[in-house]
């Protein structure tokens, strides 16, 4: 099927016109600060345009987003949500009975598919549209304050079209036992929709919670999900964030997760990429308080013509902050992965400890993995390091397994599985861990 395309310039015009028509129809009842934020963001997008891989543009060097810029997407998604049965949602859940769950279709909250039990400690989990309409002071205080729409065109676009998503507030001292599941589903048919889901998580001082953000394609069609999540981790708070991506094979999935940590805050993330055709994840952390720490894990299992680009920037702005990153990928077919890990240590940020590792296992000769660590260190008293590895299965390990009677194919499976188990096992919550493990093994079977 020949797909209609537009030039990136014409595409930009389409987004600008769509913005104007939204402003004229329906957006007027939104709070004035939201409208001001959107206007500022669309103005930036107008100037920035879509990023290109031209020389000097390091950030997008390995990921060409021209297909996103040129696809004739349906830019304005009708607000009437698609009719979905509970059974269609079921395959994206994992038996997490009792977990608070918000479900979105093409970026729009679907109350009928969601379930939020009464939560103790004043914890609030609700749609962002509702939170904005209620003139929630916290939302006004935080929304759009962290994710940078000045220089990132996709964040600018998302911010310009903010209309719905999830708002999670864990008040000071609240400890939430059950993880919160934010489930974003996407449709596609004759129309190829664009959606801009937005997530805001505010974790108060000394609070503890786990949030799962998952993205899944309901059909095998093409669409564009442009997601921005802002996460505020208060002093002494612990936030565990798990992101599971199961988009359709042709889908475009571009995300920015912006995390701001305060003193002694702890943030851990797990980023699982299984689906998607063109995937770009920006994960940016501001280590903004002494003693805060983060542990960032990632797994990408890709094959065919999949392209997955993880860009992680950790800004160690304060002393005694630590970060650890472990990303692992298994690539088959003609898949391509990019891992671009940047670590910044500011001038007075003494005793920073930062370590990043990216390892890739290539199952085919045509697969390619690019790893690019970058360090910007302006302080002497730090410990920073990185490791990278890329290659085939270890022949010595294979022989060792075979010498005990295990056939070659099984030995390969065991080693491939072991390669990702190390990362997957960092997720302790059941049944989430089992779900991720199952997804990973099913994907590996197909590679």
């Amino acid at each position, binding site marked *: 099927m020949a797909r209609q395309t537009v030039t990136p310039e014409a595409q930009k015009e389409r987004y600008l016109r769509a913005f104007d028509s939204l402003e004229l129809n329906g957006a007027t009842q939104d709070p004035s600060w939201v409208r001001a934020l959107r206007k500022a963001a669309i103005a930036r997008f107008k100037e920035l345009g879509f990023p290109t891989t031209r020389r000097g543009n390091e950030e997008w060097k390995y990921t060409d987003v021209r297909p996103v810029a040129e696809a004739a997407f349906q830019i304005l998604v009708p607000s009437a949500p698609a009719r979905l049965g509970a059974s269609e949602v079921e395959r994206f859940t994992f038996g997490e009975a009792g977990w608070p769950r918000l479900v979105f279709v093409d970026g729009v909250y679907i109350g009928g598919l969601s379930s939020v039990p009464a939560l103790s400690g004043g914890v609030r989990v609700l749609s962002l549209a509702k939170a904005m309409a209620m003139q929630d002071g916290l939302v006004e205080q935080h929304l759009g304050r962290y994710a940078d729409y000045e220089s990132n065109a996709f964040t600018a676009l998302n911010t310009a079209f903010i209309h719905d998503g999830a708002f999670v507030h864990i008040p000071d001292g609240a400890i939430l036992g059950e993880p919160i599941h934010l489930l974003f589903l996407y449709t596609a048919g004759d129309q190829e929709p664009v959606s801009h889901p937005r997530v805001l998580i505010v974790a108060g001082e000394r609070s503890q919670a786990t949030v799962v953000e998952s993205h899944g394609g309901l059909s095998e069609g093409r669409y564009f999900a442009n997601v921005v999540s802002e996460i505020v981790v208060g002093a002494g708070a612990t936030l565990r964030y798990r992101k599971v991506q199961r988009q359709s094979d042709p889908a475009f999935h571009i995300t920015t997760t912006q995390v701001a940590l305060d003193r002694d805050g702890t943030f851990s993330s797990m980023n699982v990429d299984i689906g998607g055709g063109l995937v770009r994840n920006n994960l940016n952390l501001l280590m903004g308080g002494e003693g805060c720490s983060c542990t960032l894990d990632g797994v990408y299992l890709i094959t065919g013509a999949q392209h997955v680009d993880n860009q992680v920037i950790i800004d160690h702005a304060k002393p005694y902050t630590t970060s650890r990153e472990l990303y692992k990928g298994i690539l088959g077919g003609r898949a391509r992965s990019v891992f671009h890990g940047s670590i910044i240590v500011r001038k007075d940020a003494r005793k920073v400890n930062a370590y990043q590792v990216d390892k890739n296992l290539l199952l085919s000769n045509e697969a390619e993995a690019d790893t690019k660590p970058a360090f910007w260190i302006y302080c002497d008293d730090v410990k920073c390091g990185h490791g990278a590895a890329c290659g085939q299965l270890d*022949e010595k390990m294979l022989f*060792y397994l*075979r010498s005990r009677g295990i056939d*070659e194919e099984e030995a390969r499976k065991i080693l491939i599985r*072991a390669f990702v188990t190390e990362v997957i096992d960092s997720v302790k919550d059941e049944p989430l861990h089992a779900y991720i493990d199952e997804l990973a093994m099913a994907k590996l079977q197909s590679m």
Partner: protein
Amino acid sequence: MGETKSSPLLEVRDLRASVGGVEILKGVNLQVWPGELHAIMGPNGSGKSTLANVLAGNPAFVVTAGEALFQGENFLIMRPEERARRGFFLSFQHPIEIPGVRLDNFLRSGMNAVRKSRGLGSVDVLQFNRMLREKAQAVEIDATLLARAVNEGFSGGEKKRMEILQMAVFEPMLAVLDEPDSGLDVDALRIVAEGINRLRRSESATIVITHYQRILNYVVPDKVRVFVGGRIVQSGGKELALEVEAHGYDRFEEAAKAPPASV
């Protein structure tokens, strides 16, 4: 019994093998009979480990000539897993660390593969783990190590004892132990040697490859072969080991340099 006695377990004839185009094994001849314990002694770089690896089917080595029959069958055409399933076992000189693969699961997979090839059903997890723990006790291995990744972070002694444990699990017809004594202190050496002795059976055989005579104080060989320059240069009884200990390998190396006597 008489039937098994009538043919050797292993018969190697003029075996030659190379790695990266360099010939390492230069015509090895060897017969191993049921019930025997052989010691193959030789200096570093003589090709002892290559012989062990070639017998185990390590694809890193290329056999260029000769043959090896195991229980009368052409061994060299079999894949490594097939050799293991028929009762061959190699105790590695440098056991590999495999992060992410639990030792108990790995051994159970191996055991089940062996059983399947013999038409037997899978072994029950609990039953297998109980057996594994019992055998681990015999070689003084802490049970907690069994649930850890294969050899990962194990000490040198733990790795060697783990190989003996694996041998106990598989109960092979022919075990080749490649330097089971290297890097061991006296206590660990005793544990390893006791393990080897305990596993001796009248129908199976063991080959201990070593550089030093030390382990042969605990494990008494029926036959000693001196291995120099890629082949066996001298064969004898256990007294040959003492001779090597007393005089070193120099004399044998001189002999190896000399052109082989024409036959």
